[in-house]
């Protein structure tokens, strides 16, 4: 790691060129240190795009993180392509990057990915229920699609519009979703004024599900305070 940091500090031309040939995994700790060096030494990297095509997934993840931290909106097109990457870690990071870039043009892609991850999750949960009767040995495979779905809804948050109300409502009302995800969807609906808020009021008046009512009241109270 020390050599990587030294290279970033000292190289006059393309300080991250070592990433081109990196075959080992770039650890999270190394990524933190490289990012810190870029910041501390005010090293400007015009574009991280070249590493978005790396065969090393950890390098792609690092490039995505840097794009989001340095707000490289010009990379949005390439980031979008990574949303549907076979590597779930890359896909998750691409969603997070979309969130950081706050670009409304890609909401449709995010919703498509949400649907595909929901199908994936349903299949995993079905498989888990079929193969295990003991709760203690429920597998870990559902974690990643759940994380991706949560990040998708979070990414839609800052750019949500009237067009997203039915999507968000569906997420909020789906009792298979975690509380955290449902509450997030309600919070975003609340921020889509006035239609999202109106829709929440309608749910409050007409819905029999006590839990969603509690969630909505809770979000409203928290927002007021």
């Amino acid at each position: 790691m020390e050599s990587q940091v030294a290279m970033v500090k000292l190289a006059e031309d393309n300080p991250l060129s070592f990433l081109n040939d990196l075959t080992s995994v770039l650890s999270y700790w190394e990524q933190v240190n490289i990012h810190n060096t870029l910041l501390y030494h005010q090293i400007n990297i015009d574009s991280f795009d070249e590493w978005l095509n790396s065969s090393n997934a950890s390098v792609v993840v690092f490039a995505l993180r840097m794009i989001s931290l340095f707000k490289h909106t010009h990379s949005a097109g390439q980031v979008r392509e990574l949303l549907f990457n076979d590597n779930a870690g890359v896909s998750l990071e691409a969603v997070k990057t979309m969130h950081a870039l706050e670009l409304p043009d890609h909401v449709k892609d995010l919703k498509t990915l949400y649907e595909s991850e929901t199908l994936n999750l349903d299949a995993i949960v079905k498989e888990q229920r079929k193969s295990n009767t003991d709760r203690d040995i429920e597998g870990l495979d559902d974690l990643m699609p759940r994380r991706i779905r949560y990040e998708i809804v979070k990414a839609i948050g800052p750019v949500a519009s009237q067009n997203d109300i039915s999507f968000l409502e569906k997420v909020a009302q789906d009792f298979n979703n975690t509380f955290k995800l449902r509450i997030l969807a309600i919070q975003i609906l609340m921020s889509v004024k006035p239609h999202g808020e109106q829709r929440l009021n309608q749910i409050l008046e007409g819905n029999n599900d006590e839990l969603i009512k509690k969630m909505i009241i809770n979000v409203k109270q928290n927002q007021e305070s």
Partner: protein
Amino acid sequence: MIEFFRSLQFIVENGIIVFTIFIFGSYVALAFFSAFSMLNYIRKNSFVDYKVLLSSPLAPSISVIAPAFNEGKTIVDNIRSLLSLHYNDFEVIIVNDGSTDDSMEKIVKAYDLELIDSVYEEKITTQHIRGIYKSRNKAFGKLIVIDKDNGGKADALNAGINFSQKEYISVVDVDSVLVEDALLIMAKPFLEETDRDIIASGGVIRIANSCKIEEGKITEVKLPGSFLPRVQVLEYTRAFLMGRMAWSKLNGLLLVSGAFGMFNRDIVLKVGGYNTTLVGEDMELIVRMRRYMSEQKKKYKVIYIPDPLCWTEVPASLKVLGRQRDRWTRGTMESLFIHFKLFFNPKYGSLGTMGHPYWFFFEWLAPIFEFIGIIYFITIALLGIPNWPFFLLLLSTIYFFAVTLSHWAILFEELSFHRYRKKREVIKMLFTSMLEPIFYHPFILLFNIRGNFKYFIGEKTWGKMERVGFAEEKKTRR
């Protein structure tokens, strides 16, 4: 009859020698592994700038969960200590587990708390939650207090886990004092590993009795003046710097101290959180998490950090020490027997082939053998057939080995973290190590046997842990 006892004597004495050799061998091997591991750790981390994590938006988020039951004497100071930890993205969740003292009133007043309306998912079933509190003062924005009906430490931790929102959870005894960089140092190994998941990490627990503590921070490290806490300093140094360090290297660690540890929240939830029916919930959780990961065929590791990150008060009276130690014995037995499937089971890797069997033979059975050995010796002495040369040789060998091991531990400490800076303190520790086998160990053995007895009669109580309290201790010193 005498002939029978002579045959028995031969078998037992040879058995004792073999078992003693195995124990000595394992301690020496662990000491070497520890030394190697510690040198490696110090070399790798001496120049690490943990502050990069402090300012990094890439740092993972952490929920610090501290259960509290009747901790009124120290709770306000200890919460302040937790809130002043150096970390970027963290929350502090204090779980008041139905205290019957004035803990809750003190916290509400000191941190200007108000009841908030909150909806959260009870992924793990717990006792009734009376209320969730947050501070009106933005300076304490990271603080969340859960007030709940009493359900024990494990239940309180589960309530905190349910409410936690961050990626990792750090479990802390509210009466412990953490060093300011504890979360930064603890988080680093989770970020370094690339080929396996770190499911939990633990740190060294140091003894705070007699240390100077101001506003929830250790300002001066002092060796305890009285014998009982001082001998525990030695015991903890030996256990943490020589035992757990080695087990971490061998990936066979079965225990992360309940006083301070960090866990992957997802895995904790997958295994269902702490088991509330046990007295050794901290050990059992680690064993269950490890077992789960092995059964899922996932590569994982439990790691251990030798830096002195957490300081805690240890029992200063034999009565309280006895309660603590018989509970530890019962806790060990619970984990070993619940997960007996692991015993020498290669399917579970180092956990099955090394960790579980080691704890079974050397942590659980060794004191029982020792006790039987004493009973046996008394019996043959009464019968007038003791093998005195054998007895004296064995006794002196064990004594000198125990003292040597303690001296190694002191050496490890002095060469690595060197927290006791005065020569007088080191000399005191060396003398204490010579007295330990005679004046301390027999009591520990008795408490252990009592724990075994209680386990078999099904006793599940924790026993009351009276504490002097740092704040009060500070006052009495003045």
